[in-house]
């Protein structure tokens, strides 16, 4: 039983990572990740929506006739996203201003519907909730990492904007380099593509090393295909 949960976790965070393996939901990935705080915030919002969506669809999956399952799923997702949108607006207003349109856009992020349709509609509640959350967390990791790289290279800052989420008490955790020109390219749209490409490359590299290690005895037939 424990194995299932472990597998779900590894699947979401690494094997089928939304951001760098499935490449789903690239719109927010590319647009929002100008800083780590932005990336993590949107990732967290997505993870919460996904966990809640999976959690609410799974128990009622047998009640919903298959003809209307997609409208019903979308209805559930839209409701949850709007709830999260209003909550962020109320309790982290500055952050809401920064993330702006991308919070409501979680509704159309295909990964949310994809997990509801392919996992929650076929599994029991607990694994479904975990699957939604882990898939979302995988995305959150990528968004956070991409945001961190882009703000460090582009502006020479670490965790800038943390005060938007936690108030001015978070300022000591922020770091701003003073004598740095800033490679503006990194925070502009091309930086998102270059950064994401680097992350994908790094993941593939680690993966290919791991498979090479585990298959040292088995002859590799066509090594060039691994690229």
């Amino acid at each position, binding site marked *: 039983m424990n194995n299932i949960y472990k597998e779900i976790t590894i699947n979401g965070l690494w094997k089928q990572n939304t951001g760098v393996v499935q490449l789903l939901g690239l719109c927010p990935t590319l647009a929002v990740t100008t800083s780590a705080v932005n990336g993590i915030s949107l990732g967290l919002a997505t993870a919460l929506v996904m966990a809640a969506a999976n959690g609410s669809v799974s128990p009622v999956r047998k009640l919903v006739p298959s003809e209307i399952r997609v409208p019903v799923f979308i209805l559930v997702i839209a409701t949850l996203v709007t709830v999260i949108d209003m909550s962020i607006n109320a309790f982290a207003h500055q952050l809401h201003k920064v993330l702006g349109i991308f919070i409501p856009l979680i509704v159309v992020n295909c990964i949310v519907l994809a997990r509801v349709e392919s996992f929650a509609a076929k599994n029991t509640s607990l694994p479904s909730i975990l699957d939604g959350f882990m898939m979302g967390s995988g995305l959150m990791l990528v968004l956070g990492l991409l945001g961190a790289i882009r703000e460090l290279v582009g502006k020479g800052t670490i965790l800038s904007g943390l005060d938007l989420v936690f108030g001015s008490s978070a300022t000591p955790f922020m770091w701003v380099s003073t004598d740095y*020109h*800033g*490679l*503006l*390219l*990194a925070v*502009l749209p*091309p930086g998102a593509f*270059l950064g994401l490409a680097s992350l994908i490359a790094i993941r593939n590299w680690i993966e290919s090393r791991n498979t090479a290690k585990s298959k040292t005895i088995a002859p590799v037939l066509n090594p060039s295909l691994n690229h």
Partner: protein
Amino acid sequence: MNRSPYITDAPTVSTIMFKVLLALVPGIAAYVWIYGGGILVSLTLATLTALTAEAVLLKIRQRPVKPYLMDMSAVVTAWLLALALPPLAPWWLVIVGTFFAIVIAKQLYGGLGYNPFNPAMVGYAALLISFPLIMTKWPAPLLLAEHPLSFMDQLHFIFSHSLPGDIKVDAITSATPLDYLKTQLMLKHEVSSITQAPIFGAFGAKGGELVTGAYLLGGLYLLQQRIISWHLPTVFLASLATISLAFYAIEPNHFANPLFHLMSGASMLCAFFIITDPVSGPTTPRGKVYFAAGVGVLTYLIRVYGGYPDGVAFAVLLMNMCVPLIDALTQPRVFGHK
């Protein structure tokens, strides 16, 4: 290159690249004469960075280092980029740009022969977007400068960004004519009065037009040596001239004349050295015509309506993107097939 009869040996890559470098020499000489020896420092820095980056990347990619290094293509990229940068670019700017050109635009795509984008232009565009303030500030030509800098002063400036005495950086730099023209036009001045400013020469930028002329000379040498085919430069210059003439004819007070566009910015460098890159350009003769015409029109439109002063780099990159399509559409029909 489609040359027949195939009797003589086709020139090797390194011969071609060597001749391209040779063709750049008159331009560099004029450059040194007009702007001072600082450019030599940039060229050296760019060359060293390019060769180092190329060697390291080849090593990582487990390709033979020496033969690829000796083909000189990295040096051509480095020189073109260095020549496109402002003459007194700080050292780190040259290094970052060259790194971008060689590592990201060339080696990550698979090295020479596989890069879809012109590496030098990728490096240039990355720098322009990242550091627009430095990239759009050009020092006045020596003959116009209030404080002409000696070579040692320039060297010092490149590495420490400080000037002797109390000269301010702003005192030795100004906008390029293309930039100046654009900003003045926005203030509703007329072209004829704008071009009275001292930075304008007979055709393009005072001093700068000589460098441009020297590039033309080098280009003609490449044509004579059959390193490049006539299609690309001719069509590019013709399309740039035609579109600027059209606009000029409609409203001469609001648009500069064709000659100004041909002799300003990177037009000549682009015509003979940049769009003639065989890797990132199209392969069919008809495709070359479309490609060059596209670059000419885009260059003009970006110059006149875009957010940055010169449009050559973006125009080339945009047309690079169209190359697979152009090639596919202009494939000559094999005899006997429909």
